[in-house]
């Protein structure tokens, strides 16, 4: 883990933050901390404190377990979508960058088409076709994150394809699967990792936005976006319903972005120059 030594405290803080979020959610879900997220146990719209650390919603459900469920749903949907994107974008990017030719042309055209839609607009189109819900969320994230990742994997693959070790492998008669898996893939894995990290934050953002508009995760299931959407009706009377999941959402995205920045800087450090 040589890159770890090159990262600064902010990058490590980002990773730590993310780990706490994931582990906390897993532990809370496994041990049922805060009780049943679906149970209507308390008074409606109770402020945080006492039996309900984060208050209750309009149906008297405790917000703490609902928040844990929401974090879990959001992270799970985003991660699944980004993993699919990573596989597809790597295949497409290598095809376009390493082989190029008409195949590359076709791939980049398709990517360009997807890239032509503003993210939330593309998500709305997906939701209109497949109907609101988790499927629409995952499909939207995949379609939204594919273009950028494919482009960058392609750019990285083009550079790697020109390297001497690839040329010498080709000359020594290595088959293309060997070249791809032994030489190309390891050398673009950094790009994939960095872009995957950024894609994860985009995924969380898309889940939030789509659910906020009411086309993502549907009640009674909770996700960070869905919690904010449901809470926004009672924004003035019970602001904690929106502010708490909002802060968690911001922290999650920020932690991932900061970690991604640090990862990028440690994999491709840049010079600095002052003008005096």
């Amino acid at each position, binding site marked *: 883990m040589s890159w770890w030594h090159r990262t*600064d*405290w*902010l990058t490590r803080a980002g990773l730590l933050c993310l780990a706490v979020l994931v582990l906390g959610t897993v532990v809370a879900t496994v041990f049922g901390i805060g009780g049943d997220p679906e149970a209507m146990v308390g008074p409606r719209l109770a402020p945080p404190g006492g039996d309900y650390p984060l208050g209750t919603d309009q149906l008297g459900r405790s917000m703490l377990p609902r928040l844990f469920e929401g974090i879990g749903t959001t992270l799970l949907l985003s991660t699944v979508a980004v993993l699919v994107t990573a596989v597809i974008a790597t295949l497409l990017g290598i095809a376009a960058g390493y082989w190029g030719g008409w195949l590359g042309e076709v791939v980049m*055209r*398709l990517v*360009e*088409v997807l890239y*032509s*839609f*503003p*993210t*939330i*607009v*593309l998500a*709305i*189109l997906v*939701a*209109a*076709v497949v*109907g609101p819900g988790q499927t629409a969320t995952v499909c939207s994230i995949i379609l939204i994150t594919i273009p950028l990742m494919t482009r960058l994997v392609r750019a990285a693959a083009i550079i790697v394809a020109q390297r001497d070790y690839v040329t010498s492998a080709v000359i020594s008669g290595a088959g293309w699967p060997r070249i791809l898996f032994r030489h190309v893939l390891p050398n673009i894995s950094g790009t994939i990792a960095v872009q995957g990290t950024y894609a994860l*934050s985009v995924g969380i*953002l898309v889940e*939030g*936005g789509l659910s*906020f*508009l*009411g*086309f993502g995760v549907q009640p009674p299931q909770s996700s960070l*976006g869905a919690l*904010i959407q449901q809470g*926004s009706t009672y*924004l*003035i009377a019970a*602001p904690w319903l*929106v*502010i708490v999941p*909002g*802060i968690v*959402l*911001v922290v999650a*995205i*920020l932690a991932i*972005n*900061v970690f991604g*920045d640090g990862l990028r800087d440690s994999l491709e450090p*840049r*010079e*600095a*120059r*002052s*003008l*005096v």
Partner: protein
Amino acid sequence: MRLFSWWLRRALSAVVTLFLVSILIFAASRLMPGGFAEVVLGPFASPEQKAEVSARYGLDQNILVQYWLWLTTALTGDFGISMISGEPVTTEFGLRLPVTAELTVAGFAAAICLGVPLGVYTAVRAGRGRTAAVGRLASGLGVSVPEFVLGSIVVFLFSRFALGLTVGGYVPLSEDPGQNLRSMVLPAAVLSVFVIAVTARTTRDAVLTVLVEPYITAAIARGESPWFIVTRHVLRNASIPVVTVLSTITAYLLGGAVIIEYLFNLPGVGSYIVQAVGRRDYAVVQAGVLLAAVVFIVLNTLTDAAAGALDPRFGTGSKARRSR
């Protein structure tokens, strides 16, 4: 001449992309629940109306003919009838376009007027160690706060406490420009935060890349002042990647406007599309998505052309040599 032929190729490529986008939206409109007649007419249409639409769009003919009829109808500006209002979709859009345009233009202006100077400043004053990390955290925060979270907090604060501006109560620009601006300040500000941060980050990256170029070292070695170097050498060279990112920013603004209009209850195209999906008013959805894509592709082509005009190396092939 070389630049001209490059622009021509770029324009042709945009037309091809537009064509493929239209195929995608066409396919999506056929896949929407209820079939295409319902997309155009809504679920409560009479059999006669359905038959009429079926004939007009050639629904009984093969898919290529159907696409051709759909495309030619759309090219004449006819996107069907809104199921909810019974008015042509084009008319409905015309009423709402000014709101969305005002928001987008305000966001764009903020990105350029605030994001670019901020990016240049942070790059030239690139601190190290702790200061650099704080700068990263601040710019990271800007791109990490989704507009629906920031917007909700703003709505809460301005509704709960008397802070001088009220939320909601949109007044058209033509009716009372002063009131219109007052009602648009908060939505535009919330929409701008993200684009300002993105523009600042892109500008900062671009400037940092330019700052390590040998011609900057040469200018420093000639004893030029930082101000001189930034204004004479850095800005123009860094503007090339910044200009190309402006189209991405537009795409974001168009998407962000959807959420902002919905959140602040503004009668724009974005909130209209959101309502349309909820009411299964698919003619509106299809037209709205197409509109957003067309605007984006056109702007993307224009910014590429602008980047080409800014860089004398463009289209000569020597750019590839310089960029590592």
